């Protein structure tokens, strides 16, 4: 097989994966499903989790030896884009990037691996804390003698998860521990997000938990999992932007004022072109980054690549969803039109794991550090 043949067979696999994910979501009701779930209180659909698991979605980047598809981040990105297109609230990037990202690196033998891949369980990851830095290195949440004490902040997916992977300070540096959602001494305070989902603020007071790993391995695996999740969130934002732009394009072709479709006015046309160019640049960037991350082994370089993707995707998604509201006119400001759901989801995904300004800073610091090292 030539290199080109191999490339095209990879491309063909990704195309099929995209097609099956898209069909699955469309059959389930597309973005209309997101609205229903939001109106019902902001959770996700456990049947959908089962269907996604059946399609192999959660294990997409897990090696085949550990029960996954072993397809790499490029494939994860394809799925994340489709999730973004229908603004599905299920914890797809969370599971692929963070929960399984940690477990497959630290404890591929653990029974939770299989349960996550099969969709039997979902685990949120509690790694940040309020306070300076928000990083796990200065974790004040402690794990001592099998029990957790302290608090964790900004926990995505806390409301619907069966349990938590908690990064806490332990006997030997950081520890990764597992606790059930129903464990004693655990309280979850919910903060409602723009898209109807919630972020959890967790407090532990002597909450029993099982240690999965400890030491520098936890720090390293967490950094890698965050890089993966960051790049996948970028892909989700690209899918979201893509669909938001499509909806807007259809709207300006149909909406008439002054006896003409508003899309015939040059000022509208040029704005639409600018959004389209921004979208294409974001798509090209994120695709390139995911492919490069699959070939790159140095964690710092992978982190720099992930920052590049998220910086671009957030920039594009913010601009596209906000301009989309303007191009819809007054109806864009109503809850009745779906375009607002996209704006709201973009707000949440942009803030998660760092926004564009944050990632540009990280990216430039990393670039300078690499330059100085050469």
């Amino acid at each position: 097989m030539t290199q080109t043949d191999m490339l095209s067979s990879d491309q063909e696999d990704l195309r099929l994966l995209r097609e099956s994910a898209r069909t699955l979501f469309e059959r389930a009701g597309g973005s209309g499903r997101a609205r229903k779930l939001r109106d019902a209180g902001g959770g996700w659909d456990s049947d959908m989790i089962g269907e996604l698991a059946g399609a192999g979605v959660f294990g997409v980047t897990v090696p085949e030896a550990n029960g996954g598809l072993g397809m790499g981040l490029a494939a994860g990105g394809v799925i994340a884009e489709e999730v973004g297109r229908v603004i599905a609230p299920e914890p797809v990037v969370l599971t692929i990037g963070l929960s399984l990202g940690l477990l497959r690196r630290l404890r591929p033998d653990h029974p939770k691996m299989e349960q996550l891949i099969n969709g039997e369980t979902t685990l949120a990851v509690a790694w940040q804390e309020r306070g300076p830095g928000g990083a796990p290195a200065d974790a004040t949440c402690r794990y001592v003698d099998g029990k957790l004490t302290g608090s964790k902040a900004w926990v995505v997916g806390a409301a619907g998860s069966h349990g938590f992977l908690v990064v806490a300070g332990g006997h030997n540096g950081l520890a990764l521990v597992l606790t059930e959602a129903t464990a004693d001494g655990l309280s979850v305070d919910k903060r409602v997000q723009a898209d109807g989902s919630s972020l959890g603020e967790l407090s532990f007071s002597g909450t029993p938990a099982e240690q999965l790993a400890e030491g520098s391995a936890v720090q390293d695996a967490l950094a890698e999992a965050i890089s993966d999740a960051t790049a996948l969130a970028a892909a989700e934002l690209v899918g979201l932007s893509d669909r938001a732009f499509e909806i807007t394009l259809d709207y300006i072709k149909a909406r008439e004022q002054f006896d003409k479709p508003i899309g015939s006015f040059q000022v509208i046309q040029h704005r639409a072109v600018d959004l389209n160019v921004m979208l294409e640049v974001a798509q090209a960037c994120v695709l390139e980054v995911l492919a490069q991350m699959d070939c790159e082994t140095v964690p710092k370089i992978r982190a720099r690549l992930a920052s590049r993707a998220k910086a671009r995707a957030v920039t594009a998604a913010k601009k596209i969803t906000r301009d989309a509201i303007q191009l819809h006119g007054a109806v864009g400001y109503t809850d009745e039109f779906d375009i607002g759901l996209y704006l709201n989801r973009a707000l949440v995904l942009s803030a998660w794991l760092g926004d564009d300004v944050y990632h540009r800073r990280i990216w430039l610091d990393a670039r300078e550090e690499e330059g100085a090292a050469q």
Partner: protein
Amino acid sequence: MTDWNAMSDAEFRKEVHQFFETEYPEELRHLPHRPKFAEIEHWHRKLHTKGWVAPAWPAEYGGMGLNAAKLLIFYEEQQRGGVNRGRDMGVQMVGPLIIKFGTQKQKDYWLPRILSCEDIWCQGYSEPGAGSDLANLRTRAEFDGDDFVINGQKIWTTMAHDATHIFMLVRTDPNAPKKQQGISFLLAPMDQPGVDVRTITTLSGETEFCEVFFDNARTPRENLVGELNKGWSMAKALLSFERIFIGSPGLAQNALGQLESFARGRGAFDDPVFRDRFAQAALDVEDHAALYARFADQLRRGETLGADVSMLKIWVTECLQRITELMIEAAGPDGGTVGPLQVGNVSVDVLASFYKARPTTIYGGSNEIQRNILSKAVLGLPD
């Protein structure tokens, strides 16, 4: 005769890189102005001996016969090395037109003279009333015996004051029903009493643009290329490759490199505001390159490019302008100073870079025209 297309991309790139690296005169690298022929004649002779004057022409006419993918590599290396394109209007514009639409006699006569630069060409397209609306051109050519007699005016004619010949679009049928009809493609000598060239001084003080006035200038009938009154569609057919070339990342990458070394020397990287704006610009360049690679891959697979390639030009030229604006900001109180600014061992002419970036959003079809094209041809927006 080497079959360059049979080489791997990497091999070919290495070969081109090496030639430009070792043979191109150092003092001509990254020239800030467009040189007159005399200034680069020595380099042109070297290229001519090597047989590399016309990378895109078929080998039978003295070109390298490169396919589109190899051609991109050639130009990428040329840009990267700061190698001046020389006086290439003949090679880029007239030559391909003669090859495609000219008679055997025209090919035999003109093509070797283009390669040797015995004739130096300028392009007579734009007119005072015909810029973005090029088909509105009014310069007339009428038969008089064995000659055409030309009357009218061309403008923005690059380096006309250093050219021996002009290729031009002229109106040969003023009564045609549509303005795109009745236009012909003519070749004419500049050295004659009816042709008057005046240079235009630009904002940067350069005089590379000219106005060319025709007052009963003459050119033999045999200098008509292609069919009479069919010049418009012929000229348009030539633009397809130019559209990806004009959107290639080279210029912006070079400018970004200049900005970075200049701003580091100035201590601008200590300022968090500058840092963010630099990171934006750098990512704009890097992510553009990812999109450019997608189009270049299309060429590599032998596909033709669609109208969507216009987006490369919009993005990269506007990005280039932001980079040169950042250079001025990094210069602080020196931001209005003419000439090179020295920082450590780096010398950067911030104003020259700034001025050079301005016309990029105007030439080759202004960015507004490109947006019109995209909105119709790609987004399908209505009239």
